[in-house]
């Protein structure tokens, strides 16, 4: 590995007298209480990483049980009621406890200040508070699950959730509400930090795309989450006081709920995928050794996705009974949002073109992300087409579609990011070979799990059923087999990354010879990130082709 001082440095260290070495952020204070009261964004990121990993595997256990049940056409493993509770638990945990916080709260927390050359986020105490809110929300959700579970699905559709379900809906709603506050605070912190704490010379169009992506995500978090929060409160009110807001029998209107819910939840899918795009935009140029193609377009596309994302919620309601004209408008707008997404895919591809590509583990994950995201996105166009959606709605086609985007896309990128910045976070290198094997296993397992689901959906298998006609069994068995491979793939990084913590080689400050500011400081970084405040003098992604 080469040294930190490399030709691609975008930093002018100025006339620093001599480097005054601070100890790493991991060094001071080993006790639990030091960690639980820390205000260092890097330690908070680690706290998030640990808790989020726990919830990921918990959600995974529910997924495993679902797939096991579906291996046979009869509902013989669990009762129908338990099945409903399983997929609800799986959905709630994966969406609110894993996908939404994963990249912003773990990678974003660690990297945003480093990437903008700041010593911390603008409000460190608030940052810690948002981790506590996350834990509190997680605890409430867990309690709801342990106390008997919830059977509404993660979408809490009314009037079932508000009037008929006799499970722990209010507890689950409260948990999600608290989690929402956690994300609002994180978003607020990022927005203010990017506006106020950028290093000298770091203009908006010199920001790494990861920063752009998290900034746009934060805007969505801050503006959309409150709407969800109040909607959930209304559901709880209807349930507790038996008054009609959403229940037609009481004079309410269920469409009102769907409007409000999807006004949040469609932008929420961009909360999950924009940060993932940010990660890919860091890894791909680094391992192709070329500047990002069309940097400005990439930044504009991120903003466009965030803005248009607020206008397309009605594509979840094509079959809900909303007016036909509304359906047509939403269909059209949904096609529009595909344009900036396509720009991003084209620009990644163009960045790769004629690059001197190095297929290291992070790069494999990033390429996996691009491929799976593309498939998921293209099948999204099927669903955005009004006429087709009427056939495909609520079938396994939808299940496959959102898993390609959210699991194939976001989780793949999250893992890519973990691998890319692992040396920075921990100061250790892991085995690249094992990393590559895991990436390939995950990719293979993923496609075997979810591709058959497109076929199932196309053939008419509805989602959320725990038994099905025998003719669907072959595809379901393939899918379940894939899930086993996928599970193995997800477990592998736990092993070799943990191993690297103790036995891995020491990482240099910049093992990948990347250009971001975060690579200009030690690995792991000192407590206040930079010994001297950096000054940026170059454009972003100033990569040059690899020497001989």
């Amino acid at each position, binding site marked *: 590995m080469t040294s930190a001082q490399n030709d691609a440095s975008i930093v002018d260290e100025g006339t620093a007298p001599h480097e005054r070495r601070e100890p790493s952020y991991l060094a001071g204070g080993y006790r639990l209480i030091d960690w639980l009261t820390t205000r260092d964004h890097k330690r908070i990121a680690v706290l998030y990483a640990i808790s989020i990993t726990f919830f990921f595997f918990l959600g995974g256990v529910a997924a495993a049980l679902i797939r096991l049940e579906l291996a046979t056409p009869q509902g013989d493993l669990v009762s129908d009621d338990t099945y409903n509770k399983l997929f609800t638990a799986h959905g709630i945990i994966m969406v609110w406890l894993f996908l939404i916080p994963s990249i912003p709260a773990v990678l974003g927390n660690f990297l945003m200040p480093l990437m903008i050359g700041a010593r911390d986020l603008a409000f460190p105490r608030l940052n810690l508070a948002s981790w506590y809110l996350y834990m509190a929300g997680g605890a409430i959700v867990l309690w709801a699950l342990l106390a008997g579970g919830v059977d509404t699905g993660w979408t809490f559709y009314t009037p079932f959730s508000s009037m008929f379900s006799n499970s722990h809906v209010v507890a689950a709603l409260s948990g999600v509400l608290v989690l929402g506050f956690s994300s609002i605070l994180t978003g607020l912190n990022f927005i*203010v930090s990017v506006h106020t704490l950028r290093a000298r010379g770091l203009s908006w169009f010199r920001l790494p795309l990861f920063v752009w992506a998290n900034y746009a995500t934060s805007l969505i978090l801050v503006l959309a989450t409150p709407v969800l929060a109040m909607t959930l409160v209304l559901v709880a009110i209807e349930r507790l006081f038996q008054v009609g807001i959403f229940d037609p029998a009481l004079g309410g209107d269920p469409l009102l709920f769907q409007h409000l819910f999807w006004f949040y939840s469609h932008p929420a899918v961009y909360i999950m995928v924009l940060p993932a795009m940010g990660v890919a935009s860091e890894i791909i140029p680094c391992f192709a050794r070329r500047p990002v193609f069309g940097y400005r377009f990439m930044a504009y596309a991120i903003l466009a996705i965030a803005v248009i994302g607020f206008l397309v919620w009605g594509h979840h309601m094509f079959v809900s009974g909303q007016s036909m004209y509304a359906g047509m408008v939403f269909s059209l707008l949904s096609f529009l949002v595909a344009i900036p997404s396509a720009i991003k895919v084209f620009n990644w591809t163009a960045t790769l073109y004629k690059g001197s590509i190095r297929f290291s583990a992070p790069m494999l994950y990033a390429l996996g992300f691009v491929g799976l995201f593309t498939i998921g996105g293209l099948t999204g166009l099927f669903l955005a087409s009004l006429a087709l959606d009427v056939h495909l709605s609520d079938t396994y086609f939808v299940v496959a579609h959102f898993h390609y985007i959210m699991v194939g896309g976001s989780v793949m990128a999250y893992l890519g990011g973990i691998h890319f910045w692992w040396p920075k976070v921990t100061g250790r290198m892991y085995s690249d070979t094992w990393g590559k094997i895991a990436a390939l296993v995950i990719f293979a397992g993923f496609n075997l799990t979810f591709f058959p689901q497109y076929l199932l959906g196309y053939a008419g298998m509805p989602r959320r059923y725990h038994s099905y006609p025998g003719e669907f069994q072959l595809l379901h068995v393939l899918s379940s087999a894939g899930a086993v491979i996928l599970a193995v793939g997800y477990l592998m990084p736990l092993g070799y990354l943990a191993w690297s913590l103790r036995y891995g080689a020491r990482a240099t400050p910049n093992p990948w010879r990347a250009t971001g500011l975060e690579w200009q400081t030690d690995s792991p970084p000192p407590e206040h990130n930079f010994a001297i405040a950096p000054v940026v003098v170059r454009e972003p992604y100033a990569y040059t082709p690899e020497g001989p």
Partner: protein
Amino acid sequence: MSAPVLEPQFASHAQQDFARSFGMWVFLASELLFFGPLLFGYLYLRMHAPHATGMASRHTDMLLGTVNTAVLLTSSFCMALAGHAAQGNDRRRATRLLALTAALGVVFLAIKGFEWHQEFDEHLFPGVGFHPADATDPATVHGIELFFLLYFAATALHALHLTIGVSACVWLMLVLRHPPPRGPGNEAVELAGLYWHFVDVVWIFLYPLLYLTARSGG
């Protein structure tokens, strides 16, 4: 002399002050959207059941609502003066004005509580006991009930915000006695002021929607 502590992540006081007030603005933008579903619900109701909305709004107590609007506007005025005093580093005067602001906030809450009590007695609280005096056909009753649901949700959310505002005033009154670094800087009063004005502005929207709609028609 009154310079607050500079947190390590900031390079200057100017930067720190800017970050804090900018943070407050972002926070308020987010806060505003908490009222979004209620306003959307109101719009929805108004479009689908205009008659019931009008009837329902005539059940609210316009006199008390108007008095409360005046009380709240006065409190905002006091708050603005408090911010001004703090800016001039007159922390004693700022403390007194904060006390006045908080007191007016409490008066608002008391009147609001009295109104709720009245409405409760008239069986206007949504739920099994709901029956408005003047409507009998189920569709209209449903509309009125939904109106009152939104009414109670919105005014309660507003009252919750006001309670937080009052607590912030009281807290500032207690800590302004200590000079920095133990006490807060003067800009803290202005941040509290921003929040207070926001709560005020929300009421300025709720008041016509809940009390004045369709009143003119008689």
